[in-house]
């Protein structure tokens, strides 16, 4: 008579949700004006508003360049204070007996002030207007002119990770590594400004700092070191509030330490390489908007409450069976994915001394035996 074997259960976790109606938020950079209105149907290139960016100051050592005494430098300005000047335009000129010295404006700006003690001229860069585009096909569900935000309802694929921190941000998706390699600081450069980068199995602390420094909006990796995570958020156990933020948004898809990004997530992200996406660390997800105009029609049919605390999918208990797709959640081969092709009928004692039932999991390259508590079912 066969010995009774209990059904083997495992946690099942939603990793990818296709064609889901979701809210995304577009926000002005700095001050500006929102021109969108509720109910408006938009395409990705449509403008929702304009930011006015004041971008800083420049100092020109005018007296030195003119070869004159600092207290005299002001006399040689060709334009008065508070006037606008453009790059290359004649800013000041000194005429001596045999020669003259021209100083050209190094930038577009406003001549703000002159210091007669140091001989320095201060120029304020011209404000520039930055349009806020929709980035998606969708419908404007909410406008907050005071906060400078527009909430759009759109259809997207949601990709969930297991660790995340930071507010919703947007940017062009940029792969800087394959799914298995860790990323060093030298691989991050200023060309990634405003991008969301995919950083392989792990992003080191220096690389994360550099990414924040060059204006990377978000980072997706397979894993994060606990020390780097704690240096951002303070503790391993945190309350996932929607507004937690440190200036960059991070999302790890698999766990702590160097773990390759799972095949399912990596292949899905690859389809959006070079495209405009969103990342929300506090909800542990990336939002990959649909690029089809049909989105507007679908979104019209859906009423989505403006709930800022919409819960992420729960981890549920499911029965393991042949043919089920799983991911391995403990070393060795943590992060690997495959299909269950065998379930042992009798327990095996592991090297650790623990007895358990083993599964045979067929990954892309081989078949492996895995203790059943060490897998999660991929939904």
């Amino acid at each position: 008579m066969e010995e009774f074997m209990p059904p083997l259960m495992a946690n099942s976790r939603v990793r990818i949700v296709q064609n889901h109606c979701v809210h995304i938020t577009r926000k002005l950079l700095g001050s500006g004006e929102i021109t969108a209105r509720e109910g408006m149907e938009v395409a990705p290139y449509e403008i929702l508003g304009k930011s006015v960016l004041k971008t800083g100051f420049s100092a020109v050592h005018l007296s030195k360049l003119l070869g004159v005494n600092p207290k005299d430098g002001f006399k040689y300005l060709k334009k008065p204070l508070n006037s606008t000047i453009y790059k290359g335009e004649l800013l000041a000129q000194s005429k001596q007996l045999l020669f003259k010295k021209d100083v050209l404006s190094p930038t577009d700006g406003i001549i703000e002030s002159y210091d007669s003690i140091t001989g320095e001229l201060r120029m304020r860069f011209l404000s520039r207007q930055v349009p806020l585009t929709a980035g998606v096909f969708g419908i404007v569900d909410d406008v907050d002119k005071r906060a400078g935000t527009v909430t759009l309802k759109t259809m997207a694929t949601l990709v969930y990770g297991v660790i995340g921190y930071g507010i919703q941000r947007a940017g062009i998706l940029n792969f800087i590594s394959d799914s298995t390699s860790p990323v060093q600081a030298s691989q991050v450069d200023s060309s990634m400004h405003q991008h969301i980068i995919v950083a392989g199995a792990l992003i080191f602390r220096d690389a994360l700092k550099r990414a924040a420094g060059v204006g990377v909006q978000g980072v997706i990796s397979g894993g994060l070191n606990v020390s780097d995570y704690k240096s951002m958020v303070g503790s391993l156990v945190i309350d996932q509030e929607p507004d937690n933020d440190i200036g960059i948004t991070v999302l790890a898809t698999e766990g702590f330490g160097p773990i390759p990004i799972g095949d399912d997530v990596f292949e899905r992200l690859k389809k959006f390489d070079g495209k405009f996406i969103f990342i929300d660390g506090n909800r542990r997800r990336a939002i990959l908007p649909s690029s089809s105009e049909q989105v507007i029609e679908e979104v019209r049919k859906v009423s989505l409450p403006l709930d800022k605390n919409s819960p992420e999918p729960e981890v549920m208990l499911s029965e393991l069976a042949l043919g089920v797709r799983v991911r391995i959640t403990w070393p060795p081969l943590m992060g690997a994915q495959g299909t269950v092709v065998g379930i042992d009928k009798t327990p095996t004692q592991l090297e650790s001394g623990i007895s358990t039932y083993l599964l045979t999991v067929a990954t892309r390259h081989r078949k492996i035996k895995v203790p059943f508590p060490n897998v999660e079912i991929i939904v």
Partner: protein
Amino acid sequence: MPKLTGFFSGFPELGKLTVEDVNHWLKAKEQVFFVENFIGNRYLYPQTIPLSADDLEVDFALLREFIRYHPEFVYSAKNKKLQILEELELRFPPPQKLIGAVLDVLALVDQTPVLLRKTSGEVRLVGTVVSFTPSEGESFSDVNVNGQLLKLQSGTVTILPNREDHIVVQINSQPPLSISGGQLGVVIDLRKAGQ
């Protein structure tokens, strides 16, 4: 439907443990990154089990810290008994090592029965811990177990397999103790109190 959890799901202080808290218990000290990420993944995936003996050693270190925070999980101060859940025994084998880990944290005195609570609800006596602190300078203690004389080193824990219900144990010239054996046996703890 509830999700699969593991022993460490019931350890809220897990996230606060430091590398030193863990390495303190390990003979071969692990690298900082390894321990931190190990704890982090235990927190994320508490239902997983260690394949390797090395990983189990780290889990035993975490278990000791758990007992340090929650001694009531294994010891009833009111009844002066150790009670081990069967799930704990299966998760942290072998039983002798599990008792050793418990004794690393708890300072017991005199005799302490060890009970195993099976998942069926049955409670079974599996042995007794006899705790004795040898005098200063005494390197060895004479231990008499049902007439069998043993010389055990001070500062050690020795587990003697013995399934008998009635066992008489005498240490040095102390009064004899009447105790019970079982699946675990008799545990002679000759360490200093609090060691």
